[in-house]
């Protein structure tokens, strides 16, 4: 009887151990799925999920479990979700945040608790510069990158008098600063509008009176839709060209502006027509799985998943060895949909950045076409401010 009990106990231990071994690596995704910005989180999640589905629930051959929760665009709520993922679910890897203000609230707290955070979108200057951390990686871009590329392009194209427009909040000023870093000409006007403003008639009339040769604007979400529509209705899209970062020109927003955005040139680190095997494969698989053209956010979610997959493979799924995991991520040894990818010293991307143009394709869909790569192997200016211990 005693021996029987002993064998039974041993069996229990063995099975428990086995169960431990196949326990999947948990990855916590805090993202924005509700509010009108919810489609951004949806794209990131779907891109990430696609990478997992393609490997049958694994990343880099390691079984993973994706925990997703919606932060409602609120920093406080995102902090709570992060706490829960870390404390209750024992998550060692976090990702998913869409908005910079949410990232600034959450990331410094979690990286101090020996948790890896891989940003699939938000890239505020704070986290690239003074607030950089060995556990924080950004796989998308530093926020200024998509403005810098437009500044360079506008200068190269010979525009000498540009009118600037952004909402009156910190990110608005950052984006215009990014543009001005590479733009050499004169500034016809620099206007900061109310956050969430819907009617731009007054600004458009003032802009026309200044007669600039181009307009650069950063107006995310619905504000951008409002501006582009009203700009076209005022007939200005035929006379003064408009430029901006990719945020107002993703394939989902374009369906809400259609013809009014045709011909607008925008800066992006990715486009669905980039011609490399990883990207062709991704775009086809995404269209098959979800029935729509992926946006840049989806590509970032997909790359975040594949980057993590490459690292998990190297550490054989053991996320407790933090140093090894960090080193594996830093190698960026994955097949990116952007063609090539490496990390700067402050763990942000070194990548090519493109100018795209909004077009209507043969099927009548509104989408982007890559015009040219303006920057080759572009990093960010905050590297010097980053002192990792």
């Amino acid at each position, binding site marked *: 009887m005693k021996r029987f009990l002993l064998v039974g106990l041993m069996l229990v231990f063995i099975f428990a151990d086995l169960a431990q071994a196949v326990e999947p690596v948990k990855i916590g995704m805090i993202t924005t799925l509700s509010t009108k910005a919810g489609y951004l989180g949806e794209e990131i999640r779907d891109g990430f999920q696609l990478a997992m589905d393609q490997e049958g629930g694994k990343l880099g051959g390691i079984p993973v479990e994706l925990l997703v929760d919606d932060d409602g665009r609120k920093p406080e709520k995102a902090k709570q979700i992060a706490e829960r993922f870390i404390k209750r679910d024992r998550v060692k890897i976090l990702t998913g945040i869409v908005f910079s203000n949410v990232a600034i609230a959450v990331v410094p707290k979690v990286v101090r608790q020996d948790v890896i955070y891989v940003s699939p979108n938000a890239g505020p200057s704070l986290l690239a510069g003074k607030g950089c951390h060995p556990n924080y990686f950004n796989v998308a871009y530093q926020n200024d990158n998509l403005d810098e590329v437009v500044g360079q392009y506008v200068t190269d194209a010979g525009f000498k008098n540009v009118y600037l427009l952004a909402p009156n909040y910190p990110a608005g000023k950052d984006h215009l600063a990014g543009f001005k870093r590479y733009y050499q000409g004169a500034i016809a006007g620099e206007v900061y509008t109310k956050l969430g403003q819907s*009617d731009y008639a007054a600004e458009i009339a003032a802009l026309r009176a200044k007669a600039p040769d181009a307009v650069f604007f950063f107006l995310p979400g619905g504000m951008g*839709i409002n501006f582009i529509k009203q700009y076209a209705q005022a007939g200005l899209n035929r006379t003064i060209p408009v430029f901006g970062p990719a945020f107002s020109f993703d394939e989902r927003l374009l369906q809400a502006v259609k013809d009014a955005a045709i011909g607008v040139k925008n800066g992006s680190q990715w486009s669905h027509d980039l011609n490399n095997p990883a990207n062709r494969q991704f775009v086809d698989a995404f269209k098959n799985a979800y029935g729509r053209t992926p946006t840049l956010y989806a590509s970032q979610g997909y790359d975040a998943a594949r980057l993590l997959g490459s690292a998990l493979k190297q550490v054989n799924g053991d996320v407790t060895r933090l140093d090894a995991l960090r080193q594996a991520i830093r190698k960026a040894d994955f097949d990116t949909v952007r063609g090539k990818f490496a990390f700067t010293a402050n763990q942000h991307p070194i990548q090519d950045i493109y100018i795209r143009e909004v077009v209507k394709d043969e099927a009548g869909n509104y989408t982007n076409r890559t015009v040219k790569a303006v920057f080759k192997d572009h990093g960010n200016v905050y590297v010097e401010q980053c002192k990792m211990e």
Partner: protein
Amino acid sequence: MLLFIEQLLNGLQLGIMLFLMSAGMTLVFGILQVINLAHGSFYMIGAYVGATVTARTGSFLLGVLAALTAAALAGVAVEILVLRRLYKKEHLDQVLATFGLIMFFNELTRILWGRQPLFMDVPVWLSGSVEFIPGIPYPAYRIAVITVGIGVGVVLYLLFTRTRIGMQIRAGAGNREMAGALGVNIRLLYTLVFGLGTLLAGLAGMMAGPILAVEAGMGEEILILTLVVIVIGGIGSIRGALVGALIVGLVDTMGRAFLPALLRLFFSAAHADGVAASLSSMSVYLLMAGILIFRPRGLLPAHG
């Protein structure tokens, strides 16, 4: 000078939009004594239904018809199902309940139409610009909005002063017990008034559709300005709503348009732009505060 006239037109057009919203809301407050925060939701319903029907049928006018019908029917349904339980309650309860309605309608539009904003364009016969003042090409659609708004103002005026139902509404607003005692069906009257208010909101939403992003939560952006208009004009007063809407539209537009140039006379350019951006976002609230100091009940209060 031409720029000034153009900005005046822009201010007028914004004012007209605000009038359509605030007329309905102030009517409901004046007569039903209910603060309906969900008024913006009917604006959103108008825009969504209008955009959908216009896209399906290709006819803008059918879209307008559908938007008006949907907003009015939704209003009547909400009045019967929700508001009737709130008339006897305190204002705080009404605010909570109608705030809940905002969230309900926002989520409902996301469930029905998805998270992506809808597309809606100006109808072909109203696209392009008209140069009715020489030197100022002005978008034809915005002129149409101004015209419709003036038309609605005239119709409302005639409705209230020349018709029996208008007389009953005014009586109900003055003293509802007495009006009820004199044989006016107050229950039905309330439903009608609420439906009329939401119909106007739906019209505003439909007309905003081609200019703005049709998306969940679009109602809250205009709701705040609408509340300012009502407070400035005098709660419950339609004439007040008209005056308040025009003032707010003009002050907001003119502030955004000319404050930067004005401040540049005194400060450096970068500094002036920053101050102007903050000041012009505040201008209507400063105006409201100023008016409340001298006319605590608004410019044209409803009763006496």
